[in-house]
Every structure is written in structure tokens, then in C-alpha cells.
């Protein structure tokens, strides 16, 4: 066993040194601790395979001293097998050490009396290494042909803050982890890093049993607590049967600091899978859109069928949980200061255009046009973006992004990273992936283009609606198409209503820009992303916020009469914001542009409903006109008129057509 390292803890200095020397002569590396504190420090910092602990680590004369046994029971070090070595053995101590279990494991794997001698200790250690430590020292580990897969580099990806003096031990511990994970194999070859974020990486791995064919895995590796959470979520929430898209958790392993889970992707060739972000950049919009369809219609379909329920809370109340605990507790003033800090940092980094005041965000496009939106600080915590319950909930993945979705060589998708999976609003996965596309995946796109992207997306009145990509730059057009596809899939699961979805996007955007830390400096590219997220939040607030909060920003006509905000495609009637279908909006706009003028039925039919009279029999045309116009006028009046039975804005001119009256005095006899 190369480098097998033992922690030997005993408060008897002479005994410790003598026995440790014996073990070193037997080929073990021994780390000595004279007290519990030192033992803890070594367990925390060093690479320890097996611990030998005395029971009375503080006072040999005190039969109540079980400090060593308490250390053995510490869950933080449960994955290090322990042998109790004591000069005061009792059957109660044996029961405590070997009997009760911690998550299925006893606190210790063996119990010895010091008087049994060093040979008995060696035998117990050999048993422990064979049965409990379970590191395959003979496993041939090929770390890939690229430098980036060397253990120290992988440790620095998982734990960037590891002090240099501990790096070698942590690298060795990471190697131990793989030797545990692939215990039954003769060789494992690591392929490439497929995904990574702080505390977590995903690698492709190819394992070779002593006899038998190659087996392919996707290995998630990271901080122990993250992997424990991921495994627990997988077992609780991932559907057991997703057809041939089942991502199977085949094995897991842990050390003091790290955990690893090996997944198999059905019969897929792991060498051919790429992360979604990479796929996005390498393929055209059509292919990416097809992958989006596959993700939600196939890979995640069985997830959304589980435990669906309508919860009696509005979506904004449920989305609060998406923010971290620190962000949720931020007072409004501090949130406002963080937002102002982002604007200052953006300016310092050369990202021009966005400025803020306590209530507004203003974005100035390169042509000098100013667009006013809302500062999201007052709205994020006070639930002033108001939607109506219930909210459709179920089991969601919880963190769909460019890293957690893999695409194989046939365009089929697989999801990983289950640490955030669980019950929640079903719109979460869609909002999460859209956010990832806009903020993480989109590259080489300046803030003005990102503003344009958001503006076009906010034009959508329904999730199933069509996104206007005409005239957009190629990258923006691609982003619009892909996001449009995501929203279309969302409509199929949560319904077409867009406002709850936009609330979800608001919280996703907030989570993104709240990652900005004022004490750090960022590159221009990083600041573009933060600024985009902030701008997106401001634009969403403007779209979502209840009219009472925005009236001060609107012209008098919006409060007293009927007003159309052309820029934002909004309709206000006597201070009330009205939502219209695309066709309804088109009809109203036509009348609005000709306010107080007669609009004939024929003109409306031609210009609003595209009814071309040249190819249609007049009688049939009349019928079509009547149906289209009557139906849509009726709907429009129901949406706009304070009293649809007695309209005051959209008046009928008998025998001729209609007119929109922008005064408070209705004409007599027109209805």
C-alpha cells in the first residue's frame, strides 16, 4: 500500500512514540496527535486513511473521559475508518464503538486493548484497510493527456481557497477518492472536464475491469457536502423510469473533504457528449432549438408528471427561495446600494449606458435614446410584483443551465447536477434555462444588443407567442429563437400565461446580479453580464409592477382616459393596465392612431385582419368581416371599457364602422 497514512492519537507520549515507530517500520506513514484538538486538526488538514484513537484522550484517571470515542463519532470524519485502542476496555465502550451506527457505519471498525500488543494492532489495521478503507492501490489511473486533469489542478477547481501547504495532501485525497470510486476496476482513464463551478466538477471517465469491456461514466466530483446533497436529491426526486434517458447513479464514494458520484447515461457514448453551452456555440439555432425540445419533452418529461399540484401562493412568494439566505435578508437600502455599485463598476469597466436612481434604471442606447425602467430594489422583497395564485408546482430540476445539461452526438439530452432538485413552481426550469442562455451562454454581445434582446422578449404577450427576431443581429436572433423555444415548451407545461413566468425570470436575474461582490473587480465581459442581469430585472419590473406603483411615471392620459405606451406595448385605461391579445392590441392601435376618426369596417378588415377582398366573394367577405370584427370588437370592449354594455371609448358608427373617442363624453345614439 503506497503512502498509507495513519493518524495515531494517544495522550500517552511514550506509548504513542513507541507504537508509532513500530507502525512506521511496518511501512505506514504515521501522523501523531497527543490530544483531541491535534487529532482534529490532522483529520481536517492532512490525508488520513485510518485513525487509531485512544478513548481517554484527556485524563487517563477519569473513567468518564470518552473524548476519543466522541471524536470517533464525529460525523465530519465518518469516512475515515477508526480503530479504538485503549488501556481501559469495557463492554460498554465496545458497544459504543462497534455497535451503534452513523448513517449505516459504526463509529469504529475495530476495538483493541493496548495489552494485546503491536502485532494485534497490525492485524487489525490490515483488516481495516482490506474491508473498510477500500482504496484500490493497484488501480492504474490515467489522468488524461492534458495538464488540466492533474489532481492539483482539479483540487484548485473544486476548492480554490485551499492553502498551498495543503494542496499536495488534497491532491492525494482526490486520487484516493477515485481509487475508492473505481475499487473493482484495474484501470480508469479520465477524459475531459464536461462542466464545472466552484465546489463541483464533472468529468468523463472510462473504466476497465480486470476482465470485461470498457464501461463509461460521467463522474461528478466536489465538496463532500455538495455530493451528499446531490445523492440525496437524486434518490428522492429523480424519476426512476425515464425510459432510455435514465441517468443512473451507479456508485458513490467520499473522503473527508470530497465526494464523487459516477453516473451512466444509458448506452450513450460518453466521449460524444458536450455541455449545452458548448453545443449552443457550435451549432445553428435550429439544432439548439431541437435540443431544447428534446430536453423538456423527453429528458425531463417524466419529472413534470410527478406530484403536480396547485399551491395557493402566488409565484413571487415561492420564488423568494431561489435567492440565497443572505440575499433574502438584504434590507432594501443595501440592495439599492448593491445595484448602484454595479452601475458604478460597469462604468469603471467601460460598460456604458446604464445609470440608476433610487426608483429608476435608465439605459441610454448608442443612438442617444433613453429608456426608463424601474430600479428593482423596492420590488424584490416586498412582493410588489403581483400575480394571482394558484401556482402550478411539481418536481423540478432546479438548476438547468449550460453546464447541467449534456447533449450527445445524436442531439439527445441528459441532465446532471441534482443538488437543487425538488418541489417548486414548474416554471422554474424554463426560467432557469432562459436565464442561462441570456446571461451565461450568450457571448460577444454588447449591452445595447442585450437590451434589444430583452425588449423583444418582453413584447411577447403569451408564452406560446412568436418572438420577433426580424432585423436582429445574428447572435441576438439566435438567442431569441432559442429562448422562444424554451418559452414555447414552458407554455406546454405551465400554460400560456406569461406574467408568472416573467416573475420567475425576475428572481433569476436578481440571483445573477446579486452575485456581484462590490469588493472585487471584474473584467468588462463579466460586468456586461451583471449589467445585463440588472437591466433585465428593471425591464421586468416595469412590465410586472402593479399600476399604483407606476402611475407617477405615466402621462395624465393614462390615469384619466385611454393611453397606449407604444414603446412597451402597454394599454392603460383610467389608471388600469390592460392586457390584450396580439390581435386585440393591433385592433386598438389601429383605432387609437385614428382617434376620434371614423374607421370603416372594410378598412379594419383589410388593415387589421388582412382580409383581402379581391379573391373572396362579397357575400362571403361580409360574413368573414362580421365574424372577425364583431368578435374582436366585443372582446376588446370587454377588456377596455369600464362598462362594456355602455362603451365610452370604442363607439359604433351605425352603418359605417367604429371610432375610438378619446374624451369622456360618449356620443348619443351611436350604439
Amino acid at each position, binding site marked *: 500500500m503506497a503512502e498509507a497514512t495513519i493518524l495515531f492519537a494517544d495522550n500517552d507520549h511514550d506509548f504513542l512514540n513507541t507504537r508509532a515507530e513500530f507502525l512506521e517500520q511496518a511501512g505506514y506513514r504515521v501522523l501523531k496527535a497527543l490530544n483531541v484538538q491535534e487529532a482534529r486538526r490532522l483529520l481536517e488538514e492532512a490525508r488520513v486513511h485510518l485513525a487509531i484513537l485512544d478513548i481517554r484522550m484527556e485524563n487517563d484517571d477519569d473513567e468518564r473521559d470518552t473524548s476519543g470515542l466522541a471524536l470517533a463519532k464525529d460525523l465530519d470524519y465518518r469516512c475515515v475508518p477508526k480503530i479504538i485502542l485503549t488501556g481501559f*476496555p*469495557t*463492554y460498554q*465502550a*465496545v*458497544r459504543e464503538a*462497534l*455497535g*451503534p*451506527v452513523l*448513517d*449505516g457505519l*459504526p463509529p469504529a471498525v*475495530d*476495538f483493541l*486493548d493496548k495489552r494485546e500488543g503491536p502485532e494485534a494492532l497490525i492485524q487489525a489495521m490490515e*483488516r481495516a484497510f482490506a*474491508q473498510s478503507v477500500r482504496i484500490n492501490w493497484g488501480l492504474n489511473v490515467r489522468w488524461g493527456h492534458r495538464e488540466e486533469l492533474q489532481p492539483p489542478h482539479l483540487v484548485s477547481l473544486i476548492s480554490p481557497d485551499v492553502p498551498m501547504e495543503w494542496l499536495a495532501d488534497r491532491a492525494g485525497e482526490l486520487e484516493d477518492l477515485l481509487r475508492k470510486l473505481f475499487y473493482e476496476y484495474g484501470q480508469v482513464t479520465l477524459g475531459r472536464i464536461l462542466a464545472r463551478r466552484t465546489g463541483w466538477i464533472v468529468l468523463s471517465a472510462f473504466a476497465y475491469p480486470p476482465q470485461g469491456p470498457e464501461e463509461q461514466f460521467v463522474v461528478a466530483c466536489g465538496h463532500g457536502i455538495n455530493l451528499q446533497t446531490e445523492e440525496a436529491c437524486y434518490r428522492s426526486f429523480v424519476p426512476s423510469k425515464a425510459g432510455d434517458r435514465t441517468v443512473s447513479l451507479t456508485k458513490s464514494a467520499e473522503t473527508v473533504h470530497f465526494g464523487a458520484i459516477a453516473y451512466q447515461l444509458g448506452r450513450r457514448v460518453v466521449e460524444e457528449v458536450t455541455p449545452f453551452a458548448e453545443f449552443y456555440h457550435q451549432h445553428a439555432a435550429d439544432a439548439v432549438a431541437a435540443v431544447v425540445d428534446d430536453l423538456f419533452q423527453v429528458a425531463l418529461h417524466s419529472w413534470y408528471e410527478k406530484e403536480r399540484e396547485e399551491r395557493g401562493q402566488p409565484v413571487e412568494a415561492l420564488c423568494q427561495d431561489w435567492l440565497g439566505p443572505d440575499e433574502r435578508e438584504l434590507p432594501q437600502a443595501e440592495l439599492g446600494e448593491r445595484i448602484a455599485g454595479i452601475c458604478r463598476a460597469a462604468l469603471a469597466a467601460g460598460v456604458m449606458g446604464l445609470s440608476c436612481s433610487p426608483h429608476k434604471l435608465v439605459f441610454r442606447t448608442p443612438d442617444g435614446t433613453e429608456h426608463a425602467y424601474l430600479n428593482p430594489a423596492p420590488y424584490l422583497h416586498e412582493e410588489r410584483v403581483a400575480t394571482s395564485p394558484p401556482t402550478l408546482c411539481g418536481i423540478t430540476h432546479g438548476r438547468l443551465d449550460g453546464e447541467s445539461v449534456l447533449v450527445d452526438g445524436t442531439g439527445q439530452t441528459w441532465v446532471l447536477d441534482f443538488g437543487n432538485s425538488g418541489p417548486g413552481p414548474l416554471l422554474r426550469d424554463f426560467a432557469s434555462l432562459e436565464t442561462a442562455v441570456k446571461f451565461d451562454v450568450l457571448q460577444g454581445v454588447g449591452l445595447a444588443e442585450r437590451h434589444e434582446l430583452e425588449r423583444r422578449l418582453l413584447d411577447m404577450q403569451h408564452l406560446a407567442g412568436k418572438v420577433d427576431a426580424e432585423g436582429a443581429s445574428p447572435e441576438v436572433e439566435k438567442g431569441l429563437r432559442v429562448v422562444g423555444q424554451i418559452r414555447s415548451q414552458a407554455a406546454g407545461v405551465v400554460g400560456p400565461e406569461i406574467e408568472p413566468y416573467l416573475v420567475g425570470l425576475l428572481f433569476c436575474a436578481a440571483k445573477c446580479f446579486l452575485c456581484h461582490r462590490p469588493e472585487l473587480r471584474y473584467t468588462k465581459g463579466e460586468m456586461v453580464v451583471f449589467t445585463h442581469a440588472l437591466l433585465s430585472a428593471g425591464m421586468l419590473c416595469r412590465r410586472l409592477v402593479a399600476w399604483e406603483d407606476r402611475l407617477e411615471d405615466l402621462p395624465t392620459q393614462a390615469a384619466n382616459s385611454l393611453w397606449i405606451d407604444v414603446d412597451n406595448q402597454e394599454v392603460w385605461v383610467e389608471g388600469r393596465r390592460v392586457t390584450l391579445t396580439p390581435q386585440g392590441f393591433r385592433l386598438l392601435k389601429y383605432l387609437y392612431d385614428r382617434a376620434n376618426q371614423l374607421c370603416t369596417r372594410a378598412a379594419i378588415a383589410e388593415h387589421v385582419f388582412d382580409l383581402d377582398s379581391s379573391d373572396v366573394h362579397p357575400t362571403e367577405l361580409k360574413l368573414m368581416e362580421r365574424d372577425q370584427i364583431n368578435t374582436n370588437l366585443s372582446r376588446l370592449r370587454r377588456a377596455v371599457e369600464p362598462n362594456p354594455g355602455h362603451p365610452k371609448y370604442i363607439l359604433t358608427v351605425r352603418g359605417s364602422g367604429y371610432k375610438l373617442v378619446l374624451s369622456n363624453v360618449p356620443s348619443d345614439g351611436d350604439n
Partner: protein
Amino acid sequence: MLVETAFLLVGTGLEALWPLVLQRALSPLGKLYAVSEDAALRTVAEGSYAVAIVDASAVSDVPVLVSCLRARQPQLRVVVVTASPTWQRAREAIRAGAADYIRKSLDEEYLRSRIQVVLDTPLPLASN
């Protein structure tokens, strides 16, 4: 077919004082049956017992019996009960796969609580 939790006392019949105390102690949890050491292996293979309670004073080789019981029925929890516990025998029994090693007592609450803990605890690793 057994429909309630079944416990099996190995080595001693139910006529003596202590087994009667044990029977009363376990009655809220299930039903206690008794069998000789010779019949124990066959009995656990044919029945569905949650816990086997081995009377160490009535069995020839506790670790061997524990090991065989666990091999015959891996889901079975085995508790060794003894009037004169020693740490060496406790170690041998638990190394062989026993879930616990307790002192023989007439305290019904003590006995019931020990068996309840065993029922509530995940199964130990199989014997070496």
C-alpha cells in the same frame, strides 16, 4: 403467516423467569418465540423474524451462531444477551455481526428500549 413483528429467543425456552420478563417487555413491539440452538438456523430460514435474541449462557459458541444466523438470514438483527458481559466477548459477538451485546436484565423498560434501538437502526455490515 406472521403478521406482527416477530422476535426469536435462541437457546432458552419461555418457561423461566427471565424469558417471561423478556416476553412481557417485547409484547408492545411484537411476539416472542423461543427455539433451541440446534433448531435456530432452520427456524430463521423458514420464518420472518425481525430480531434474534441469543442467550449467551445457553449457546455453545456465540460468535459462530451469530455468524451463521446472519449468513442464513442477512436481514436478521441479532442481539446477544448475557449475565456476565466482557469486552472481549462483546467484541467477538459484534465482529461476528451482532447488532448489540447487552446485559441480561429484569428491567422490562431497559430490555424494550434496547430492542427498539436495534429495530430502528440500519443493519450492521455482514460478519467478516
